């Protein structure tokens, strides 16, 4: 079936590509192969495809990216009498969207690396490709800095990040998740990625981010978040409990386990009061400006 094809397409992709970008690429392919007769039918199929993708990869970014993609392609006059013409317009818009978001990581990197001063000590959490790009840009700019990465259990993603950084010849040290408070006095700034940016200006990221944010606030260190704009999602959590379960756990756990209280969540929510700035391809934003951008994006 078409949906299974897209699943393979996504998984066989480049590990350097964000899962949301891969999801959108497969959605575009799905759009091309879609056989429906009406626009409404087309939209129905697309929403179903997005849901299917969410089932395989329950990250926030896939859900937000999918919805933004759908809005972007339908945000044009679909007044053509012929369905195939409409489809072509939508496919064109879809490719434009895909191109835009593939460039977004580069834009973020360019914006953020100027905030890293020479001799800085940076703390980061788990493995984020955007943070990697930022550090890459800073290193290319001949800046000297050291990076501390948390291990980020249970999947030890931090160790992978450390390896990638070593390849770039950046001095890096892996610290325990429990050592964040200990190391905070040494570092100058904290940069983390995000899986999703919510309406309040807060972020959803790998578990342990909230802790880091609270510590950095206590030490008055700037806490920066780097995220592409397709990660902006229409959620508004009030606290940790308020984040929907479908994002907290991986897709397989959601399907197999009955009592979620026994499972450890993979993400947590950092409220906007703890975040200094957000670096996105839409520019450098304060948390209160995120809502403004979201209104513009989702219209």
């Amino acid at each position: 079936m078409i949906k299974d094809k897209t699943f393979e397409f996504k998984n066989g992709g480049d590990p350097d590509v964000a899962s949301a970008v891969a999801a959108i690429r497969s959605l575009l392919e799905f759009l091309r192969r879609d056989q429906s007769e009406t626009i409404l039918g087309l939209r129905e199929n697309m929403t179903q495809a997005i849901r299917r993708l969410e089932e395989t990869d329950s990250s926030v970014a896939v859900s937000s990216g999918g919805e933004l993609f759908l809005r972007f392609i339908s945000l044009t006059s679909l007044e053509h009498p012929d369905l195939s013409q409409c489809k072509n317009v939508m496919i064109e818009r879809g490719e434009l969207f895909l191109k835009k978001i593939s460039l977004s990581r580069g834009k973020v990197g360019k914006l953020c690396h100027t905030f890293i001063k020479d001799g800085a000590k940076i703390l980061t959490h788990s493995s984020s490709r955007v943070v990697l790009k930022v550090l890459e840009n800073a290193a290319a700019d001949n800046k000297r800095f050291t990076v501390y990465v948390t291990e980020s259990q249970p999947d030890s993603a931090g160790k992978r990040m450390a390896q990638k950084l070593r390849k770039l010849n950046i001095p890096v040290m892996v610290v325990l998740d429990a050592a964040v408070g200990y190391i905070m006095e040494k570092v100058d700034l904290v940069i983390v990625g995000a899986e999703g940016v919510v309406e309040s200006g807060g972020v959803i990221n790998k578990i342990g981010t909230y802790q880091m944010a609270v510590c950095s606030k206590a030490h008055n260190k700037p806490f920066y978040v780097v995220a592409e704009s397709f990660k902006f999602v229409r959620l508004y959590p009030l606290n940790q409990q308020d984040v929907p379960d479908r994002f907290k756990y991986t897709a397989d756990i959601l399907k197999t386990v009955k009592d979620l209280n026994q499972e450890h969540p993979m993400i947590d929510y950092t409220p906007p009061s703890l975040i200094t700035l957000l670096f996105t391809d839409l520019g450098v934003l304060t948390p209160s400006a995120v809502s403004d951008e979201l209104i513009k994006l989702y219209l």
Partner: protein
Amino acid sequence: NITDSDPDGRLTVTDKDVKLQEIALAKNEGKELTKEEKQRLRKEKKQHKKNKKDDKGPPEKEKEKEKASVPAPSKPATQSPAHKAPAPVHASESAAAAEKPAKSKAELRAERRARQDSERTSKQGKKEGGQQSASSKPKATPNELQPVVKRLPEHVQVDDPAALKKLAKKLERQQVPLRSDYGYKVSLFSHLHQYSRKSPPTLQISIPATVIHPSIVRLGLQYSQGIIAGSNARSVALLHTFKQVIQDYSTPPNEELSRDLVNKLSPYISFLSQCRPLSASMGNAIKYIKKEISNIPSQCKEEEAKGKLQACIDSYINEKIILASEAISKYAIEKISDGDVILVYGCSSLVNHILCKAFEKQRKFRVIVVDSRPRLEGREALRRLVKKGIRCTYVLISALSYILPEVSKVFLGAHALLANGYVMSRVGTSQIALVAKAYNVPVLVCCETYKFCERVQTDSFVSNELDDPDDLIVTRNGKSHLENWQTVKSLGLLNLVYDVTPPDFVDLVITDLGMIPCTSVPVVLRVKNVDQ
């Protein structure tokens, strides 16, 4: 530092056909026109006829100039305080007017013409979104680079004798009785009115009233006695009364409905604000009605126009109040989970509606109702919720820190949402928000978008309402200790009605447009203005 759009302000409607009538009206309203000004008026008329093919921009400017130049020698503030759109024009006009005696007439004419031309060309491309002062303000301000003279609304200038005199004059002209203040006012709030419930302005109106429509008199009495209380209730009552007024209205000969009806409404609004200061929601409703009235085309027949206006009012009530509360309930119910303990304060029709709807949707929660003297509105909320079958607890506000550790969410209603994100609500709300923040309990404010106002306020002193101080007198065991408070010279009783909550204490605002953070209120206002 307040900026406010007084809905009581006079509109400058730019109907070219009745400009002459306007001038006649201005003359009839007893303004002294010097010979020079009369000449200038004649020149304007000629120019006006010349520019008949152009759009409505210049006549508006001309009319505003005329109005500005006429009272400029006398008191400029009589011209409906806080009249926003002509304000930038007024600033330039009144400054120019002061210099005018120094220049020659020809120079002035040339100057004026040049100004009109430049303003006309800049207004050429812009859409005429109704000839309403508030809506033309965003168009006027990009043009004017001069400092805008903001006029304070009358109701916060009670300690200024000049402002009081102007108000008295205006009310005399409109034949609306002036209500006198009652009792000793605490010095911090001496700039606000303090009325007694025992002396409503309706006592001073003869029956049958000549200028004020009887249903307006009734409404005023209901407001002043507190029979109709609550932001939504007051707005809906106001709109229904206006429907009645429009029904009974008949256009006098040689008058346009779109102009005359607006002028008829002004004394009513003055009267109502004498009974009880207008709320932000009422202000927005009045602005809307005035806009709709002035948008009635001149060739529309009276019955048709009246029917149209009534339909407009009905749709406004339906869209902005009833449907909005449905939408808000939908969003709010998402935030109520099973096992929640929800704290509410006072009686907000919207919050009660949300809780009832959530209960219908089989959510398991219990409610803690917090109440405060002297209004004790929480009892009404308690009655409504218990009737539905919701488990409730009732405490006074002094027990707040005792009860808060049990609470999982706080739902608050709002009287108005200000442009800088501050929430204006019943006094005591900011206290609840503060203590909830200290206990890390999320605070959710529920507010319809029609209550959003362009005002900016950072404290509760600058613009508030003082209720009857006698309400604070308590009779217990036959003894009322504060009964003779007026005889004690150093004693003042303060009965505040509203207070202002900073946005840092509010986690989420639920509006009919969705869930937004408190800091995004100006974005909503911007989006709304673009829509209109």
